[in-house]
């Protein structure tokens, strides 16, 4: 039986892991390569790195991080943030990432999704959407970009369908309203998109306790749940989260210890 994935999200700025709250304040947490290796050994099913480096000249730092991570962990991982061109996608994939996540740049240039899918396959193209509750939109959610700062005229459901048609193989749905609140994922948003689309949907934003993961994976119909601060501060470990989910009847992978 296909299992529900727990994906650990690391926000990386200038080569260091940071945690952002509501996309504004950031705190430094550590070395992303060491953190990735630790989560891998704990049994995370996948990792995602979001590059929030402000300056273009430090972009190369991220590729170096990706290359080192790929040598240490043997599970899929995804890289997002600041990817603007087919060449950016190529660099990330060649460095060893399986997937590339597009967000604001996909809104500005939707052909980036189809170009990436043609070159590397849909399984490599993840469309990340920042959703803001807005009852004036048909789905009840408006697409916002630039880390929540710029509202668009796009409806979340319509944009998700367009992205899938262009070649996105997976969706990451981040609720701007829930992000950093630790009050739980937006179940309504996640369920609506997961039922409407044939591709996997990853819920993001709002996790605070294990029950929030259970709710979004069961009631929210998510295929995977993203966690960040829950595990970054040592409040929970991946095995603790998975034990809880397994006890509640959510199919999860139990990782084997490494040889040697």
């Amino acid at each position: 039986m296909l299992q529900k994935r727990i994906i650990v999200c690391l926000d990386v700025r200038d080569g260091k892991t940071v945690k952002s709250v509501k996309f504004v304040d950031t705190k430094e947490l550590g070395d992303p390569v060491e953190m990735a290796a630790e989560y891998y050994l704990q049994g995370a099913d996948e990792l995602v790195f979001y590059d929030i480096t402000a300056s273009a000249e430090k972009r190369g730092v991220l590729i170096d991080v990706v290359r080192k991570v790929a040598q240490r962990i043997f599970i899929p991982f995804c890289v997002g943030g600041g990817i603007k061109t087919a060449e950016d996608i190529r660099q990330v994939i060649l460095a060893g990432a399986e997937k590339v996540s597009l967000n604001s740049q996909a809104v500005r240039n939707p052909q980036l999704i189809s170009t990436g899918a043609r070159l590397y396959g849909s399984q490599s193209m993840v469309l990340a959407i920042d959703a803001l509750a807005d009852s004036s939109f048909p789905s009840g959610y408006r697409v916002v970009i630039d880390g929540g700062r710029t509202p668009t005229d796009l409806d979340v459901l319509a944009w998700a369908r367009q992205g899938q048609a262009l070649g996105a193989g997976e969706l990451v749905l981040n609720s701007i309203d829930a992000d950093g609140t630790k009050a739980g994922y937006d179940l309504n948003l996640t369920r609506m998109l997961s039922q409407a689309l044939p591709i996997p949907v990853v819920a993001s934003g709002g996790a605070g306790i294990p029950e929030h993961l259970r709710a979004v994976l069961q009631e929210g119909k998510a295929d995977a749940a993203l966690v960040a601060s829950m595990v970054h501060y040592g409040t929970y470990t991946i095995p603790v989260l998975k034990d809880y989910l397994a006890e509640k009847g959510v199919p999860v992978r139990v990782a084997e210890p490494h040889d040697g």
Partner: protein
Amino acid sequence: MTGVLDYDAGNLTSVQNALDYLGEPWIVSRHPLDLQEADRLIVPGDGHASTCMENLRFLELDLLLGDFVARGRPVLGICVGSQIVLDSSEEGPARCLGLVPGVCRLLPGGAGLKVPHMGWNTVNFPQANHPLVRGVVSGSSFYFVHSYYTSPAQGVSVLGSTVHGLEFPVGFVHGSLATWQFHPEKSGALGLRLLGNFLAWRP
């Protein structure tokens, strides 16, 4: 020395990293001359079966694979690399290598079942004593990303199966050719163990 076929069919970096982890020397190339002296070959693959086949034929790597199998030297097909060793695929549709009798079909999907089949799924290994599955028990999980499934002919030795809507083979062995539909290089400690088993395999 393990040869890895580079035919513009997906990401080779993760296979190289896994071989490095296992301490196995490797050569990655698209030229049959570079690969013909390798002890064994790995055929990775993501993307479209018909595109993969076009590239293999253009590079004459199809002939190299046929030669390896004829000489009984080990070959491992991964993901689309496990599909194109069959006679044909519904994806394209493509005439494939025909190294193993059988076909590749589209996963049906349906209510609550997403296609592509993406994520970790449990695998049943019916041949517990086979050297290729040593140290890995039935019910262990591996990472899949695919929309088509392999259906080898009766008589082909099935190494593993999983369930996504229907039960289908996710690994088989035929002479010196073995396959995994999932990505052992992306399936954590157990995936690495399966790759290590292939490196040690003397068919």
